[in-house]
């Protein structure tokens, strides 16, 4: 792969600036560069080049002094994100330094950040689902939040467009509440999942257990290799088998010759020209030198990740926008959402003890939403719904500390007995957009670059709690009816943010009085600024959002390029 052009000194003016290089920023870079625009990508962290910078991708436990675990110093450095339970020696360099990047939890909120080229596209769960008409109509129908300015059919061609490029593996079902993507062959369910699927679909009309739909290649695709089932994705994949900006969109942007990427560039604010009535560039802080400088462009895509994007817009004050760029409605920073997390049930499957699996599948099962999808599935306790992720596995030596005994027999069993088949499902519930779930700039708490930090004030309310209760009840009931034993329902009472699906705070809408962005993700009153990351979301569905960010981004880029050609921006 050609080296990236990082010489942003040569030129301070571009056709387009993209702030952020993660899931949606990578797509913006690719689309704009391929559309012929000289594009500058501002990345606040370091460069991470595909393969070359995946420094831990082949580590085995025994190669590491502490076998992959991290000690008190690293725990302190990642004192926020450590709550996920995901951080270890092999992936810690892809998580932001929480000590250098503080934020205030007015109420408990976990904000997981990844400050490097590729952002969280290196760390994401790869679960990839289309949103449905049900999702885009939800606000209008039940009156929560404001109406989406688009419908499923507006996005459908763009789902198709990005899916064919990304490569999504999965199985088509024809369900209206979970539209099918263009699929590569699905991964396999294991024998216990197949058995539970049969039992579940027999016991519960309208519920389905399917293999997760994921942005992992099950066959070679667009020059990338297929998944090798190592399940070491969060170290970076040397085969390019899962979708990330680093392995897919940024290299594609680079080959056009139109891309410049500037690392260590913290976007401070978007520059608004009062006379022209539009944005003219981005003010950045070089994170290494502390120097402040300005880059100029005709259009700006803000893809810094939900809360950082909003932070930048809030920092972008002018006479025209004293409360932040595009904040005529007063909704900037409001309507923060996430999915509820780790509520469900687990149990033991008796039988098939002579069966095992081969390979480490970076995927599990999915049970699509079945509540409030039609007249027959209406709940009187909550609006919206939830889906489940989960899977069956044998704990292997990881479960041996619970095994009875010690000594010769114990050691023999530890090596030879993978333990019982365990099965779990855990729900992801939709959160409603509430005006008082919000972020604000805290000017009394500055980061090391002198920037006001964010104060996050967000909580689950009655509807989310009712959904969580239903998740647990349903999960236990399903496991019971599927004949599992040793069943335990759980609700870890995680605060928002744990889903790492934060959405909202600069929502799209039909009315500039109640929303920040229009139907093509442009700031209503400053149309050469586009926001296509999670900040733009008007509601949050119960399915994983990344595919929708990609589709919205590609669609907005297409609009931007066409408007530029017409000289409308």
């Amino acid at each position: 792969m050609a080296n990236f052009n990082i010489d942003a000194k040569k030129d301070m003016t571009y056709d387009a600036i993209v702030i952020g290089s993660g899931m949606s920023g990578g797509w913006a870079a690719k689309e704009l560069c391929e559309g012929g625009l000289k594009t500058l990508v501002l990345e606040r962290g370091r460069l991470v080049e595909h393969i070359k910078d995946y420094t831990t991708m082949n580590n085995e436990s025994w190669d590491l002094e502490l076998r992959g675990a991290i000690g008190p110093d690293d725990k302190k450095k990642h004192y926020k994100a450590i709550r996920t339970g995901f951080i270890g020696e092999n992936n810690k360099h892809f998580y932001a330094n929480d000590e250098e990047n503080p934020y205030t939890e007015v109420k408990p909120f976990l904000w997981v950040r990844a400050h490097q080229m590729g952002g969280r596209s290196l760390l994401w769960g790869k679960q990839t689902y289309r949103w449905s008409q049900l999702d885009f109509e939800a606000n209008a129908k039940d009156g929560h939040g404001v109406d989406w300015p688009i419908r499923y059919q507006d996005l459908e061609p763009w789902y198709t467009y990005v899916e064919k490029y990304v490569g999504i593996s999965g199985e088509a079902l024809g369900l209206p509440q979970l539209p099918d993507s263009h699929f590569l062959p699905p991964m396999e369910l294991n024998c216990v999942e197949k058995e539970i699927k049969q039992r579940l679909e027999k016991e519960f009309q309208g519920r389905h257990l399917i293999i997760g739909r994921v942005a992992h290649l099950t066959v070679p695709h667009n020059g990338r290799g297929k998944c090798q089932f190592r399940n070491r994705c969060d170290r970076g994949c040397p085969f390019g088998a899962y979708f990330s900006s680093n392995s897919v969109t940024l290299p594609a942007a680079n080959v056009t010759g139109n891309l410049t990427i500037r690392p260590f560039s913290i976007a401070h604010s978007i520059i608004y020209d009062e006379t022209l009535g539009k944005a003219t560039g981005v003010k950045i802080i070089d994170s290494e030198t502390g120097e402040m400088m300005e880059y100029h462009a005709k259009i700006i895509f803000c893809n810094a990740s939900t809360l950082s994007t909003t932070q930048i817009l809030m920092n972008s004050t002018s006479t025209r926008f004293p409360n932040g760029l595009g904040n005529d409605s007063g909704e900037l920073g409001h309507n923060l959402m996430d999915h509820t997390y780790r509520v469900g049930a687990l149990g033991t499957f008796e039988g098939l003890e002579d069966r095992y699996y081969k390979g480490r599948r970076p995927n599990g099962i999915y049970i699509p939403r079945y509540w409030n999808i039609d007249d027959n599935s209406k709940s009187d306790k909550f609006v919206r719904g939830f889906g489940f992720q989960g899977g069956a596995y044998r704990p292997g030596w990881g479960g041996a500390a619970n095994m009875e005994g010690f000594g010769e027999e114990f050691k023999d069993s530890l090596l030879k007995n993978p333990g019982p088949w365990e099965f779990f499902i855990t729900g992801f519930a939709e959160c409603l957009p509430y005006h008082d779930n919000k972020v604000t700039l805290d000017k009394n708490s500055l980061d090391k670059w002198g920037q006001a930090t964010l104060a996050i004030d967000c909580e689950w309310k009655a509807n989310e709690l009712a959904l969580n209760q239903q998740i647990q009840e349903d999960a236990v009931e399903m496991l019971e009816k599927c004949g599992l034993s040793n069943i335990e329902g759980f609700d870890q009472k995680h605060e928002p943010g744990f889903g790492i699906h934060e959405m909202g705070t600069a929502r799209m809408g039909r009315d500039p009085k109640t929303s920040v962005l229009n139907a093509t993700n442009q700031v209503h009153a400053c149309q050469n600024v586009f926001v296509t990351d999670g900040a733009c979301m008007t509601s949050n569905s119960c399915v994983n959002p990344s595919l929708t960010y990609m589709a919205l981004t590609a669609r907005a880029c297409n609009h931007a390029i066409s408007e530029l050609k017409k000289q409308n921006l």
Partner: protein
Amino acid sequence: MNRRELLKNTAILGGASVLSTSLFSILQSCQSEPRLGWTPTFLSPEHALLVSALVDTLLPKTNTPGGLDMKVDLFMDAVFSKLYDDKAQEAVVVEMDAFNQQCRSKYGKPFYELDATQKGAFLKEAEANSPKFNRGVWGTAVGEQKPVGFYRSMKSLAVWAYCTSQEVGSEILAYDPVPGDYLGCVPLSEVGTVWSL
């Protein structure tokens, strides 16, 4: 003679890689006494003897290597030293003293000086009295986790250290670093052992 000293002397003599028969037999004879053959970073000599004896009782050498062969005790010392924070370090010291104390009040001597039968009986009791780890979802235990206590945490550490050691992880357990495919239903007998990874 201290085993570490011995090895050092051998190295000085320039024969570190080729131990003479006589030196080798001296090394072996040292191992039969409850005397520490390594220098701990964190543990006191008394606690190090306890950890080594626990590891040997939990994971003895059979036709497969034992915990001590895999230097599980040395690794546990490194874990206490580098992974435990101050609070956890203080706690584990207190727990080790308490464990030894219980042993003394029952048998009049510390754990590492007990004979095999006594060690077995003592651990059997510890096993019966120690809560288990809750099951987890995506790396985090669900439900309210009761403290598992000294015995089960040491057992857990020892199992982890043993199974992630190079020889056990790559030669004894089924090891397949690049599987290539996922097969969801294969006979256990075909895999043979638990997966390493």
